[in-house]
């Protein structure tokens, strides 16, 4: 197998440059690459275009990068719960492109599967369709949406092996495997890094061929955004 390990988050993101486009896995604060986000904040790269379903909260996740004004543009489906985000957006410091969540996901899949474009009915007849090609198949209209083209994809998995194979846990899977497939360079941080052969080949969600760098993260906070419980 090919060894994809790097020492830590700092080493993994060392060559991320100002102005690059980066995908971040996660849904809300669930399954986000905490270590790499912190390393990017520390590194201070700027003018980033971030493709991520959400934009974190004020003091966690991509919110930390927004706070440092490292983000030029967010491509997301939902960006609530973030006051600094709102301030930057309203002041014109931050550009935001809102796209339907399924379109976001499928544009990742398209990139990972080498398909230049996909068709989806999401957004037909809405402002999302503006300037896009509409095509009718079997009596239904679809928008043609283009595959993403990201310099880096940064994802968080539960377990991974040194060959880059990844396994996700529960709904922290979300966008992580499809973004892992979509990056020109894909960085995976994992809670537990194991030797090749430990993971069952049938259980691997992301084959190592899609992963260029992997490391075991540390001090995962795994913050809960909406703690909701039942009483009995």
């Amino acid at each position, binding site marked *: 197998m090919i060894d994809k390990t790097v020492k830590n988050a700092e080493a993994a993101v060392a060559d991320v440059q100002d102005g690059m486009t980066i995908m971040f896995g996660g*849904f*809300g*604060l*669930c*399954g986000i690459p905490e270590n790499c986000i912190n390393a990017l904040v520390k590194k201070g790269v700027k003018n980033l275009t971030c493709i991520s*379903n959400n934009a974190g909260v004020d003091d966690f996740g991509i919110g930390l990068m927004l706070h440092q004004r490292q983000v030029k543009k967010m491509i*997301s*489906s*939902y*960006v*609530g719960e973030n006051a600094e985000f*709102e301030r930057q*957006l*309203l002041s014109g410091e931050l550009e935001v492109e*809102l796209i*339907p*969540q*399924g*379109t*976001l*996901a*499928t544009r*990742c*899949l398209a990139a990972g599967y080498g398909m230049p474009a996909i068709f*989806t*009915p*999401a*957004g*037909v*007849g*809405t*402002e*999302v369709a503006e300037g896009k090609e509409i095509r009718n198949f079997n009596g239904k209209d679809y928008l043609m949406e283009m595959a993403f083209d990201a310099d880096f994809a940064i994802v968080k998995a*539960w377990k991974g092996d040194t060959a880059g194979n990844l396994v*996700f*846990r*529960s*709904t*922290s*899977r*979300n*966008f*992580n*495997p*499809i973004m892992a497939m979509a990056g020109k360079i894909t960085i995976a941080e994992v809670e537990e890094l194991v030797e090749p052969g430990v993971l069952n080949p049938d259980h691997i*969600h992301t084959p190592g061929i899609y992963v260029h760098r992997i490391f075991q993260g540390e001090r995962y906070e*795994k*913050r*809960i*955004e*909406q*703690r*909701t*419980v*039942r*009483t*009995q």
Partner: protein
Amino acid sequence: MLDKNGIAKRIAQEIQDGSYVNLGIGIPTLVANYIPTGFNVVLQSENGLLGMGPFPLEGEEDPDLINAGKQTITTLPGSAVFDSAMSFGMIRAQKVDLTILGAMEVSENGDIANWKIPGKMVKGMGGAMDLVASAKNIIVAMQHVNKAGESKLLTQCSLPLTGVRCVKKIVTELAVLSVLPEGGFKLEERAPGVSVEEIKQATAGKLIIEGEIPEMKI
């Protein structure tokens, strides 16, 4: 007149045994509480779960297990987890039988607006545009009029659209209405104690009233 739980209760009657259902945030989430006992209904959460269970007990919250509203949830025996592409794949392929979601406005031809108010901070459409563009059956749960007292059932939506010609049924605090294929809100049921006249008053779009309108049974 119904409260939020009343709307959820009435919508729950629309759910068929053996179906897959996606519930939006707000009133739709409450619908889960009123699915008849004994019914086998599987809830899909578009962040990647089939078989959403109830909220966890205190102390059993799992940060890796949330629903599309980012709330901590649980799985059930037979649940399956998948990535976001497959989640919207199954939505797009119409494997989900019913979508229940909220709206700011619905038009008499079934257009829906629920994601953007010009001039206000826009949080995004999330998965709503995908759901309304693909669902076989869409029921809207909403208040009949907005806070300013204006009808939300219109001839044409004034707000930016989420989807076109997609809403099949609307349940409000006042009534159950279906959207006719040829256009128009057909009044199906009145909420307890609500008169047809009150519903007329609260509906700006074309309202179709045929014969006696029964009161809901909830």
